[in-house]
């Protein structure tokens, strides 16, 4: 077993520098790497390009990095929940590349799986396809989208072991598995680091080969964005 365990978030983020490109898992605030984000704020690295489906909310998630002006560019599919984001974008302080959600997922997966690019129908005929190669297959138009290139991928899982194996829970899975192994270094933070050998090999969502560093997060707030309930 190849040991990926590091002691804490500080060790996990060794090598993070200004102007790097980061992938961050999560959908809304669900399944985001809270500990890595907090550490990025603490380190104070600047000029980051962040690939993440959303940009957090004003005071949580990637919103914390936006507040501190640590992000130069966001690559996302939906940023509707963040006023500071919208302000920085409309004022031109922040460079934003909006891309379709499925394209975002697949550009991650392409990087993970060694594909240079994929043809997807999403975005054909729209701004998203401007300047990109398009091509017809079976009478349907497609856009060529390239694999992401990132320095770090920060993902959050439910359980993991020192071998780097990961298991996700519910919809907090989302982009996290697709980003594992899609950057030079993948850092996984887990709610629970369990002894090697206790995870059922059939239940593992991401084999440890895709993960370089793993640690148990000190805290997980797991904030709920839209608390919707019904009454009994």
């Amino acid at each position, binding site marked *: 077993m190849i040991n990926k365990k590091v002691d804490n978030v500080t060790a996990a983020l060794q090598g993070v520098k200004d102007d790097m490109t980061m992938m961050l898992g999560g*959908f*809304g*605030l*669900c*399944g985001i790497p809270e500990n890595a984000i907090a550490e990025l704020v603490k380190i104070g690295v600047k000029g980051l390009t962040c690939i993440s*489906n959303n940009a957090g909310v004003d005071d949580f998630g990637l919103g914390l990095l936006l507040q501190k002006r640590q992000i130069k560019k966001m690559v*996302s*599919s*939906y*940023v*509707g*929940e963040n006023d500071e984001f*919208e302000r920085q*974008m*409309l004022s031109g302080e922040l460079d*934003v590349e*909006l*891309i*379709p*959600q*499925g*394209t*975002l*997922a*697949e550009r*991650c*997966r392409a990087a993970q799986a060694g594909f240079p690019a994929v043809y*997807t*129908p*999403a*975005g*054909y*005929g*729209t*701004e*998203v396809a401007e300047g990109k190669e398009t091509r017809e297959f079976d009478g349907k138009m497609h856009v060529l989208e390239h694999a992401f290139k990132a320095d770090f991928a920060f993902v959050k899982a*439910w359980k993991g072991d020192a071998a780097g194996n990961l298991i*996700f*829970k*519910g*919809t*907090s*899975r*989302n*982009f*996290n*598995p*697709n980003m594992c192994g899609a950057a030079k270094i993948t850092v996984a933070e887990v709610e629970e680091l369990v002894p090697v050998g206790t995870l059922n090999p059939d239940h593992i*969502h991401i084999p440890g080969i895709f993960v370089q560093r793993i640690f148990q997060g000190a805290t997980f707030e*797991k*904030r*709920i*964005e*839209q*608390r*919707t*309930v*019904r*009454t*009994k």
Partner: protein
Amino acid sequence: MLDKIGIAKRIAQEVQDGYYVNLGIGIPTLVANFVRADIDVEFQSENGVLGMGPFPFEGEEDADIINAGKQTITTLAGASFFDSAMSFAMIRGQHVHLTILGAMEVAQNGDIANWKIPGKMVKGMGGAMDLVASAENIIVAMMHTNKRGESKLLKKCALPLTGVGCVKKVVTNLAVLEITPNGFKLLERAPGVSVEAIKNATEGNLLIEGDIPEMSL
């Protein structure tokens, strides 16, 4: 004239037995409440769940179980969770039968715009571009006119497009319309709404063939 609930009720009639359905944020989300009880339908949410159930009972919310609108949800028996790549495999691979989503504009050729108002509002397309580029059956749920009273059913979209020639049907507060090679074909009027009123509210080419029935809800 229909309210949002009415639009959702009418669209629910389009949902057929055995359908996998993706519901967009807003009015489309309401559709789930009005699907006939005697048919089997499963709702997919692109953030990674199939077999979505109702909202949880108070106190039973789980931060790890949400829908694409970031709302806490529950799952039904037979549900599954999966990653984003697999979720869009379902969508792009046309395994999802019906997509219902909102729009800011729809053109008579089926173009749709719903993600950006240049210089004013940019929320992003989320999964909408993947959905409209791939789904075989796309129904738009929206108000017939915008806040300034201008038609949202146009000859040509003015706003940046989300997808081209993809919308099959539009259900508004005034009418049900089908996209045809010659424009919006009026299928049904909302209760109490005249053909004339629909004509006035529709900028795009409107096809009216014979008597237009009032919809039954």
